[in-house]
């Protein structure tokens, strides 16, 4: 049984233009560890992401108080255990004052359908299998990254940092269903549109392109492909097989999205 509950503490966004980003409950909360005073769950990995999303929305509204192209966060449960703990999830969310617009209580079997029903344009999880399953069904999905405390990158920590990559290994391993290719493009286009609201040097959203395995030619093509989708990437790294871990530590993205560029 799937149900969607609105978070009354948060202003609901215009469904038409908002970019719905779903985050799993397991990514946001450390389950089982209760905050003694309030009887709510402690925050986990996805919290910096929510903060960054909040910053992007704040900056968008600052530029245009009537802005409808905002990021709308949906908290989703993806297993039956969490599905039963709806009131605890809601109270924990409200306690921490998180910018979650809606809650969706689903199980392992039903969560992908919920994502599709709720027009989710980006699904973020810490579970690799969930990401793969959702992706195969056409929901653009990505793994949330653990953020390290010390980073040599001097940018503001609250900026939303998105890592887009061309990962030939994943491309080979995951076969997505036909007709599902359009969704990643739609998501990227929306992301690009948000980025365009800000100038070259002053943006709360930072988009990096990382070509993990391909050549310079690939790199040039991807830059142009993204440009044609309206995505103006900020920085680009072509690794040609060099280890990506060190770069990951420097860039510290909130999530890594495999672009599945299909030639």
């Amino acid at each position, binding site marked *: 049984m799937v149900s969607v509950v609105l978070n009354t503490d948060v202003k609901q966004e215009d469904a038409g233009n908002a970019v719905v980003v779903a985050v799993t409950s397991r990514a946001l909360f450390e389950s089982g560890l209760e905050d003694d005073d309030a009887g709510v769950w402690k925050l986990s990995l996805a919290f910096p992401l929510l903060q960054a999303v909040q910053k992007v929305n704040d900056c968008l509204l600052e530029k245009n108080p009537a802005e409808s192209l905002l990021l709308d966060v949906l908290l989703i449960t993806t297993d039956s255990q969490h599905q039963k703990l709806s009131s605890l999830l809601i109270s924990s969310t409200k306690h921490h004052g998180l910018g979650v617009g809606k809650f969706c209580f689903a199980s392992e079997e039903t969560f992908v359908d919920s994502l599709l029903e709720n027009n989710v344009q980006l699904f973020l999880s810490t579970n690799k299998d969930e990401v793969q399953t959702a992706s195969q069904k056409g929901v653009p999905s990505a793994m949330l990254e653990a953020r390290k405390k010390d*980073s*040599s*990158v*001097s*940018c503001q920590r609250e900026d939303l940092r998105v890592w887009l990559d061309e990962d*030939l*290994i994943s491309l080979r391993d995951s076969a997505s269903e036909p007709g599902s290719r359009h969704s990643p493009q739609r998501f990227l286009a929306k992301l690009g549109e948000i980025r365009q609201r800000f*100038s*070259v*040097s002053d943006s709360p959203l*930072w988009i*990096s*392109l990382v070509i*993990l*395995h*391909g*050549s*310079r*030619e690939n*790199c*040039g093509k991807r*830059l*142009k492909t993204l*440009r044609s989708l309206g995505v*103006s*990437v*900020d*920085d*680009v*790294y*072509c*690794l*040609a*097989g*060099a*280890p*990506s*871990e*060190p*770069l990951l*530590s*420097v860039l510290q993205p909130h999530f890594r999205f495999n672009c599945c560029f299909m030639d």
Partner: protein
Amino acid sequence: MSEIKPEGRAAVADSSEEQDWAAAKAFFDSLKTKVPRPPKPQFAVTIAVSSRTLFNMVAERKIYEEEGVEKYVAFQVEHEDEPLSPGPAFPFVKALMNVNSRLRQLYPDSEELFDIVLMTNNHAQVGVRLINSINHYGLTIERFCMTGGQSPIGYLKAYMTNLYLSKDSEKVTDAIEEEIAAATMFMRQSETELSDTQLRVAFDGDAVLFSDESEIIVKQHGLDTFFEHEKKFENKPLAQGPLKCFLEALGKLQRKFYAKNERMNCPIRTFLVTARSAASSGARVLKTLRSWGLEIDEALFLAGAPKGPLLQKIKPHIFFDDQMFHIEGAKELGTISAHVPYGIGQKYNRGKLIEEPAEKK
């Protein structure tokens, strides 16, 4: 073969790293147009060049400085199908490519090659023009790092850089402070033809290959004290300077040619061009190199004579020196020079200390 990278990487490679490497290898091997596959960074000599050293972007830089970053990026995008003209590091990069093709012929399966990385804090949209320009000249550069305005320093280590060349002296100074060999490149004022079959690299001695310990003595106590000191400590090796590891890396690649009987035809030649004099202070330098197990092909002791005319004869693809005085002299006579902002020489060149006699050793 021992590793070329100064910091030893763990012998057991991470499996995801190996997967990434294998995927890239498979990709490059499958390409119809045979693009040489970039080497495994752990075994390669990685040279990071900035966009302004690889290409001449003087006009574009002016737009950036006078009209701001938005106009600059827009300009680059507008002109992205026009290839840029070569910059100061261009001949050096071509020479590196030549060494790589020779190495690939002799050692088809080796990863001990030069790995050339474009390391720039340019915005990614400018990247299209940079890539187009690289395509235009057929340069074998497959790795890039375009940081979109962030300082490249953090990324130099991520790309396992052995040598970083830039036009921005601040970035170069930061790199040297992070113990990465680096130098600020200068465009030469006249064009002399350079070898296209042999990479020729010239180094100053003190504060480049060696520490600035002896230079401090000259500056603070004068030449006579310096001569006495150097004779006294002839057998005590000098401490190493910022470019020592790069010379070492060149030496390792040279030995690969010697091993295949190619000593007479080696496509790498190294030069020491020092203001020291052979008679009084030269021995210590040679003994230091020997104690490090390093060879230098030609050691030229100038005993204070200007370096410019000699460098004109040597025609190196790059000449490293810590003193701007020598860089200026070299540039004027057509040598591509790279300033290493290290050691006591910097304080004097910037005129912080008022009294400054001509730098003579």
